[in-house]
Structures are given as C-alpha cells and as structure tokens.
C-alpha cells in the first residue's frame, strides 16, 4: 500500500514540478531541478517499497486484523471538525471565548459529560491564564472579543 501510494505521489509531484513556471533570471529550469530530484527520489523509494512489500506478501500471508480503528477515527474526525470551527471562530469572537468553546468540546469528548464542572473550570482557567500570559507578559497580541475588548 505505502509503496504504491508513494510511487503515485512521486510521479504526480514530478509532473507538477515540471509544470512550475520558468525563472525569469538566469537558468529558467533552476527552480524546478531540486523538486524534480525530490519527485524522482520519492518514486524510486515507492517502487522499492512496492517490490519489498510484494515479496513479503508472497512469503508470509499478511495477517490482517481488524484493528479498533473505527472508534478512534471517529474521534479524529471529531477533533478535525472542532479545530475547523475553532479556526473559523478564532478571529471573529476572540481568543478567550473561542478557546473556551474548543477546550470544552475536547474535554467533553475525552473527559466525559459527567464531569462537566471540571471541564468548564479547566477550559475557562486555561483560556484566561494563557491570554494573560501572552498579552501581558509576553506582549504577543491575540485576537480580542468584539465590543468587550478582552
């Protein structure tokens, strides 16, 4: 699997590298040479891996086990979704609020609904604590909440 995917990726990358615009100064091919080398390198690695994987499959019949991915992958998709919402809200409603929402979403998924009190406290303490440290101590500006300006 890994081998085939890498081979395909290497070939696609090489084609994309070849299609890159020419440089206006000096050798026009210059910005493409290194990416082309990388593309071919990946392709070679991919082919080698495919060959080795193929041999192994012949020797030992791959023991496929149904790993407990299903639940984990749901959680991964959930995390990605929560992060997307976080990113969308971050600059609109400010750091503190969006982080409280994000932390709660993660805590409810991991720590469970029963401990909602702990979840709320941890989320709020974390967001406000980080905000104070970054803004006041390190002078790194973070997006503020509209109207209230915190």
């Amino acid at each position, binding site marked *: 699997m890994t081998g085939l995917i890498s081979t395909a990726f290497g070939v696609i990358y090489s084609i994309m590298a070849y299609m890159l615009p020419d440089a*206006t*100064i000096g050798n026009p091919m210059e910005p493409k040479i290194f990416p082309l080398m990388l593309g071919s390198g990946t392709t070679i690695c991919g082919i080698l891996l495919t060959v080795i994987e193929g041999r192994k499959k012949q020797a030992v019949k791959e023991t496929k086990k149904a790993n407990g991915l299903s639940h984990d992958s749901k959680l991964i998709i959930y995390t990605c979704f929560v992060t997307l919402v976080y990113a969308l809200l971050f600059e609109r409603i400010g750091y503190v609020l969006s982080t409280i929402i994000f932390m709660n979403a993660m805590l409810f998924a991991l720590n469970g609904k029963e401990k909602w009190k702990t979840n709320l406290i*941890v989320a709020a*303490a974390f967001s406000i*604590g980080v905000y104070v*440290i970054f803004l*006041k*101590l390190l*002078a790194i*500006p973070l997006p503020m909440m509209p109207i209230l300006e915190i």
Partner: protein
Amino acid sequence: MSFKKTMTTLIAGTVVTAMLLTGCAGKPAAPAAGEAPAAPEVKYPEKALEFIAPAGAGGGWDTTIRTVAKTLQDTKLVSVPMPVTNKPGGGGGVALAYLEEKKGSDSIVTVYSPPLILINLNGSTPLGYKNTTPLARLIADYACFVVSKDSKYKSITEVMDALKKDPKSVKVGGTSAAGSMDHLQFLKIAKAAGVENVKEIAYISFQDGSGPAQVMGGHVDLLSTGIADAKGLMESGDLVALATTADKRIGEGKIAEIPTCKELGIDATFINWRGLFGAPEMPEHAVKFWQETLKKMSETEEWKNACKSNGWDNTFASGDEFVKFLEQENENSKMLLSEIGMLKQ
C-alpha cells in the same frame, strides 16, 4: 485530590508570575505615555506595532528599521512597543506578500529600497510599490565592492579588466536576490567600465547575510554590498573595499578612505534610497501620524548621529514628493534593466 492541588498551585503560580512580570515590563513604557503626540480624532498608536525587516538580520533593511525603532523610542516620539521581525526571502517579495495579506492594517511599518521596484520589474513578483502605502523616504546609502584581504584584486579596475577578458572569471556575491539591487549595482558599474555581456557574470545571492563570510573564505571573489553591512569587517581589516558607488567621499574614518568609482575613471553612480512603507490601504489616520512623526524624527540629533555613524545621507521626503520620486525611480530602473536585458517583457 493531588490533581486539584496541583492545578490550584499551577494557576496561582501563573497569575503571580504574570503580575510580577507585567509590572516589570510595563515600567519603561509608562513615563513616555504622557508625552506621546495625541492625535485629535483617533488615538493612534495604542497597540504594539509590527516593524518588519524584509530580509535577514544585519543587512541594510534590518539596520535601517531597527535604527528607526530605536530612535523613535529614545526620542519618545512613539511610546508603544515596536518589535522588529525579520521576514527574509524573495529579495523582499515574501514580506510584500505578507503586506498584501494584511491589507488595510494600521500597525505594520516596513522598510524598502530599490529592490521594491526591481523585483517587480524583473518579474520576480507581481507585487510592487503600488501594493504598499508609501510613508516617507528617509535616507540614501551607497553600494561598495569588497574583497578579502588576501584577494588578488587590489582595485576595481583590475576586476573590470579580468571581466573584460572573461565575464565568468570573477564570482560576484551579494545579499539581494539575483536581478535585484546588489546584482544590478555591480552590473551597472561593470557596463560603464566597458565590460560586455554583463549578463553572463556569475552572481550568487546569500540572502541569509552570510555574504561577508563567503568572500572571506574565498568562495566568491567579490561582494557587492551596502557600506554599513560590511563596516565591522572593513574596520578590522578582514575585508578591503575597492570602491563605492557614491558621487563623493562619504562617512568618516576607514569609510572615507574608500575611493569612488568616478575617481577611478568609471563614470557611474548608484544610490540606494531607503524609505518606510505601510500595508496597502493603510488607514488615513495612521498615514498622517507616520508622515508627521517621521518628519520630526528626521530632524532629531539622535537620527542625525545615527546617519553619520552608518554613512547615510539624510534625505527626508514624504507625501506626493515621495510618490513622484518612486514613479521616477520606476522609469529609471526600467531603462537600466532593459539595457542589461533583465526587464520582464
């Protein structure tokens, strides 16, 4: 139980440290607050500003913007923090892309010089001076050509003679990207000295500022750079400057000993102006603030001293004058680039 305890200690600790340190960090800024020029309608600047050097530390842009930040702070013309960030790459193009991204921001101030125009004309980036808000021109600097102390070239004429025989015989290094300032200033002089095929001269760009080390190590033969950039190593004698591109002797001490190209019979000069720019569509109140503040700054003793020690000419211009100057520069550069064959059609 133990978890609760840890958390409380943690939180308490954080808050205490934060309070302690804000007190600490706040002090230097506090006394200056009262003296800040109060704009009538919009209070500006209130937040920390973002000063950007579009190249690595130690180069001309970096030195200029840091000197501006320091002078503004020392003279208390600006009382909010002005941290300088370096955004090197693309001969300044990376920082231009960043400005475009932050369109309409009132808190970004950056520095540019001829490459702003050159990287657009030579096709390195579609962005140009029109994608900024010009604030003011501050100084003029000049280029110089330096070699290692044990170089076989003792004068700029020897370099040019070698190039006339074989344009590939001298490897020229510089800090700006190929086709940009450090490259062009050398080609302009070479052309004036009678070298043909200047386009063939090998130019190697060291945008991380390692150029002086490369010329000292003999990896390139000559470094085309700004005077201030190589000052320390010239004073210590590790690098020898062959010529400057000014029309007269400049600076003091060792700098004033460098001959100009004109003196050596090459009739050409190259002026490296530097000015400050904001993000495109910078709000009116911010533009006004900077034009006024920078004018005041250019008249202070602190600024004049900084110019003297760096070998800069104090050439302030803002508003329409600056914009007209940029348009004029754009036309001149177009001519120079097309002569050399690097203008993007």
